[in-house]
Structures are given as C-alpha cells and as structure tokens.
C-alpha cells in the first residue's frame, strides 16, 4: 500500500469508529452548548471584544478536549497493530486529516449555536467564517502532534495543556486579530498578511510533524 491509500483507509477507520460510538461528537457538542449557555446566563449581552474572546476560548477548550484523546482512545495493542501495518507518516497524516475534519465540523456547529444564543454582531460574516475555519484547521494540526507527545507521558491531560498553550498562543493572537477585523467589517485586504502567517504556521507544523513523528512512536 502506498502512503495515500494508507492515509485514506486510516481516516475511514477513524471516521467509522467515531460514527459508531459518536462519543467525541456528542461530548464536545454538549460541552460547547453548555458553555455557551453558561456564558449567556452570566453575561446576557456583551460588546464585540468580549464576544470574540469568549468564542475563541470556548473553541480552544473544545478542541483540546476533542484532540487530546486522539492517541489514547484505542488500546496500546491495537495501536501496535496499526504501527506494524502502516508507516508512521501515514498514521500522523491520517490523524491530522481526521482531526481537521472533526474540528471543522465542531467549529461550524459551535459558531452556529454561539451566534444563535448570543446576538451575532459580525460585520463580515463570510470572512469571520473563514477565520473560524482557519482557526480550527490550525488547532487540529498543532494539537495532533502535541497529543502524540503527551500520550507518551503518564498524566496525559495535564501535560497536554502545559505543552499546547504556549504553542497555540501565537496562533490565537493572529486569529483574534483576524476575526476582530472581520467582526468590525474592516477592509479585507488588510488581513491578507494574517492569513498568510496562519497558513505558513500550518504548513510548518504539518511538515515538522511528518518529520518528527517517526521518532516519537518508535519505542
């Protein structure tokens, strides 16, 4: 099997596992809806700065919760079996693709519920949605590798938070700036450099993950 086929079948395996149990989707959905509702009860109405910050915080924690399990949800024996079948590159690539799909789906739903429960003040809706998409893709690429690293330690979830926050803050800074620009309906051409930086970070993280993951699982 070549790399592309392996990746395809691994992603299909992850998707069907998820489809059978619907564990991740349901738990994260519940998480998103309840936090949005709690925030709504606490704030009632907010200005756009708080609106934007709250949305990204909710999305950040939802994505950490969703992705931190990506290397621990299956038993070590089954993982050993996958490793003997597929190359490490295809495993990490398939995880990144699967997490990206999951995050895009989740963030779309989060954005919908958030803007239904809170009043949606977005000036440039299409561009804001683009920012959300970019954000979820970058969260997925960064967190997949970090969850791979933290799955090797014993207290997985704490290490996951400690390792991922410093890495994800630069992403969040750019994302909040980009989404704020689209929120106030600013000229789109002013945000192209931000989008470029985000895409560059994504390309870098995916290539570095591809290079490093073979060292990570071989132990």
């Amino acid at each position, binding site marked *: 099997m070549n790399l592309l086929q392996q990746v395809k079948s691994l992603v299909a395996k992850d998707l069907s596992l998820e489809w059978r149990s619907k564990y991740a989707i349901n738990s994260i959905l519940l998480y998103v809806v309840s936090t949005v509702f709690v925030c709504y009860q606490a704030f009632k109405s907010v200005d756009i700065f708080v609106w934007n910050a709250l949305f990204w915080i909710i999305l950040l924690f939802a994505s950490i919760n969703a992705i931190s399990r990506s290397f621990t949800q299956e038993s070590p024996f089954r993982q050993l079996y996958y490793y003997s079948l597929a190359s490490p590159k295809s495993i990490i690539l398939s995880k990144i693709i699967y997490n990206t799909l999951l995050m895009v789906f989740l963030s779309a739903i989060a954005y919908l519920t958030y803007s239904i429960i809170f009043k949606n003040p977005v000036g440039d809706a299409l561009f804001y949605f683009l920012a959300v998409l970019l954000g979820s893709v970058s969260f997925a690429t960064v967190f997949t*590798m*970090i969850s791979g*690293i933290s799955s*090797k*330690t*014993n*207290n997985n979830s704490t*290490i996951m938070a*400690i*390792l991922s*926050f*410093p*890495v994800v*803050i*630069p992403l969040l*800074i*750019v994302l909040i*700036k980009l989404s704020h620009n689209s929120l106030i309906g600013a000229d789109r051409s002013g945000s192209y*450099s*931000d989008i470029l*930086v985000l895409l*560059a*970070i994504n390309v*870098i*993280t995916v290539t*570095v*993950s591809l290079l*490093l993951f073979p*060292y*990570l699982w071989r*132990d």
Partner: protein
Amino acid sequence: MRKNWWKLLGATFICISIIAGFIGPVPKLPILHETIRNVYFHVPMWFAMITLYAISVFYSVKYLNQGNPKFDIIAVEAVNTGILFCFLGLLTGMQWANITWGEPWPNDPKLNGSAIATLMYLAYLVLRNALEEEQKRAKISAVYNIFAFPIMIVLLYILPKLTDSLHPGSGGNSTFSDLDMDNYMRPVFYTAVAGWILIGIWICTLRYRVRLIENTRNRDVNNH
C-alpha cells in the same frame, strides 16, 4: 589555556562594550536620553538567548539522529542557560521600559512574545520532569523542542513586525539603523552581542560538564 581563548575573547568583548558603551558618543534622542546606551546591555541578552535555544535545537536533532545521551544533556543545559538570559532580558527590559515608556509591562508584542517563549521552554522542562525513563525522556523532549522552535521564531520575529510595537523596527517604527545615524553604535553593539553569546556558551559548557560529572558519580553510587 590554548583551548580557552574564546572565553577570554568573550570577556574582553564585554569589557570593551562596557567602556565604549558608557564613554562613547550616542545620538541625542528626546525620550531615550542616555538610556539609549541600554542597547549595548539589554539587547544582547536576547541574542544570547536565541543562540542558546538554537544550539539546543541543533543538539536535539543530533540526538534524534544518533542517540548519544550527551547530546541530550547539551540540549537541556542550553535551554537552562537560555532561560537565565531570557529572565535577565525581561528584567532589564522592564526597568528600561518603566523609565522610557512609563510602565514596566506595556502591551507590546515583543514583550508578550518573549514571555510566551519563556513559557514554551518552561513547558519543555516540565515535560522532562514528567518522564521517568531516561531514554524516553530524551527522545520525547527532543521532539517537543524541535516542534516548538519554529513556532517561537514566528512568535519573536514575524508577529512583532506585523503589529504595532514600541520596539524599533516593527509596525512602521524607525529601525535601529535610522536611530544610529553616525554609525558609531553599530560596532559597539555587535561587539557586545558577540561577547554575550560567547559568555552564554561558556556558562552552558560549565553546566554541561558539571552535569556529566554528576551523572558518572550517580552511576558509581548505584553500582556500589
């Protein structure tokens, strides 16, 4: 002494930068006044820090390729020394900012970026503490070190250039070369940077050698 010439060179460079930095002429600037001389002492901290982190990443890559545990010790001691320089840079920067910008921690992307970079390397040390087994610890922390380094570069060099900053050379501010019109500051500044980088590497090698001695001693104790 033949092998130690570079340590002496670093020490001399710093002494030269101190003399020239206090006595030499500087451009007269409205807010900065004499504090412009801090360029010779505050900024080299960051150069030393980045160099040490780069050394650490270099040895992490080498460790992953060759598996020699000595490379892992070099990587972690370079990070430890880099964190020292990072804190020195943050402290001196805060003192300088308090006088010239009116507050020790203005909301500036370079400041926040370096604080987050510190967090990244503290997380690296936490990760090392969380792993018991030596070989596993070395390998996994090397992976994290290499993974975090490009993101730190983005954080420290690319993001400040895009946003408004109080530091020179970013967000449409005048750059260092605009400030230094008579080109007197430049040689002194580069001397200071080279000196501090050499001293940083020296401290790192000291720590590395102490660590090696400790390791062999521990092994002896365990064997007997």
